[in-house]
């Protein structure tokens, strides 16, 4: 049993007011990171602010701007939302690899990125889609590119009193295809040893990698080689990712294997999106 107070929010204002005023206060979306973390002693929450049933956060729609994914939308909803499958398949694939079906019924995209694990499976896909994170709080709203959202393991740019309200997959959508390739120990319900998202945009590619650095990262060197220098040898291009990443050794894989797998998956990903 855990020690905290629980507040079921009536609206967003109440949520960010609490976040602003109180200490050790945590928003609760799906709880699949938060509850595990509280039990394991990672989070010492005094107040839990339940935002999952706020209608304004449950928006999942396509509008002029693009695809809007509210902070309370679950990964299963994302993985089956037609506009996402049509225009942002890489995200549907990434979302689909998170945990198990019941986990994805609770887990949210916002929770996945706010938790800011370097291995978050939706992070790399969002990066290659140039997603924008809509942040709201007592001091107003702001938008941050997903590429600037992560600060370090478990850390993001949110300031005290701020919440992620939604994530936007902006128009224009990529007109090429995308793919998310995840290496893990079992290939089943497991955290990524390396996760690679590749998206083709016209005849260019964008590549992002998870679980290989303090945050999910773009493989800028690879992108440059392929997009600007016209590197045709994709294995060689992929090997440049070594300059963009700095993996560690942990229970899921060694630094060495991660370097290698990042290269392999990047090359495979690019081959896959370029074929189409």
């Amino acid at each position, binding site marked *: *049993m*855990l*020690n*905290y*107070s*629980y507040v*079921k929010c009536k609206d967003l204002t109440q949520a960010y007011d609490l976040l602003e005023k109180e200490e050790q206060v945590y928003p*609760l979306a*799906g*709880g*699949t990171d938060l*509850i*595990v973390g509280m*039990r*394991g002693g990672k989070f010492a929450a005094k107040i*839990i602010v*339940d935002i*999952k049933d706020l209608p304004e956060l449950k928006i999942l729609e396509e509008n002029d701007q693009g695809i809007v994914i509210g902070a309370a939308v679950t990964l299963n909803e994302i993985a089956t939302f037609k506009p996402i499958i049509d225009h942002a398949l890489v995200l549907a694939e990434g979302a689909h690899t998170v*945990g*198990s*079906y*019941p*986990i994805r*019924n*609770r887990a949210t995209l916002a929770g996945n990125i706010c938790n800011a694990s370097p291995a978050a499976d939706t992070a790399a896909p969002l990066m290659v889609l140039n997603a924008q994170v809509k942040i709201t709080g007592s001091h107003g709203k702001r938008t941050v590119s997903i590429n600037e959202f992560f600060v370090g393991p478990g850390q993001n740019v949110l300031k005290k009193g701020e919440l992620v309200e939604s994530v936007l997959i902006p128009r224009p959508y990529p007109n090429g295809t995308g793919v998310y390739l995840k290496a893990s120990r079992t290939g*089943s*319900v497991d955290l990524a040893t390396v996760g690679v998202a590749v998206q083709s945009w016209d005849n260019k590619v964008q590549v992002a990698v998870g679980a290989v650095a303090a945050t999910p990262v773009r493989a800028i060197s690879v992108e440059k080689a392929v997009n600007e220098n016209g590197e045709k040898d994709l294995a060689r291009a992929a090997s440049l990712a070594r300059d963009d990443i700095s993996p560690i050794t942990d229970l899921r894989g060694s630094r060495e294997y991660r370097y290698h797998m990042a290269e392999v998956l990047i090359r495979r990903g690019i081959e896959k999106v370029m074929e189409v």
Partner: protein
Amino acid sequence: MSEKMAISFTVNGNRETREVEVGHTLLKFIRDELHLTGTKSGCEIGECGACTVMLDGKPVNSCLVLAVEIDGKELLTIEGLTENGELDRIQKAFIDHAAFQCGYCTPGMIMSARALLERTANPTDEDINQALSGNLCRCGAYQEIREAVKAASKK
């Protein structure tokens, strides 16, 4: 500190109002307060699926839901599948195919299977694998479980 809150919900078709400890998970509440002990605990971190129940028609790991979160919601546990002592088709198929051994994972497994058949009437092996990958069975009844879920879908 043990703060309590009143919640109203439906469990296996019955409306209930209860005071719950905000620090309790749904799993603990179901077992210790509702005394529905068919739902099992195997890890309490969402990895084993033994605690799977359906909340508003969707399977969830009850160890990762707070009891207070079910206010206004509909809960279905393994005990809710039998009607007047009659087993549902998945339970029958699990028996026919011996799709369990120790039976500890079975309630969670059956709940996940039920949720699958509600969304996919005729699942393929791949659908079954995907839907049940979060339910660990250390006894290794997976092959029989696949057969049972397939058979149940045809009934």
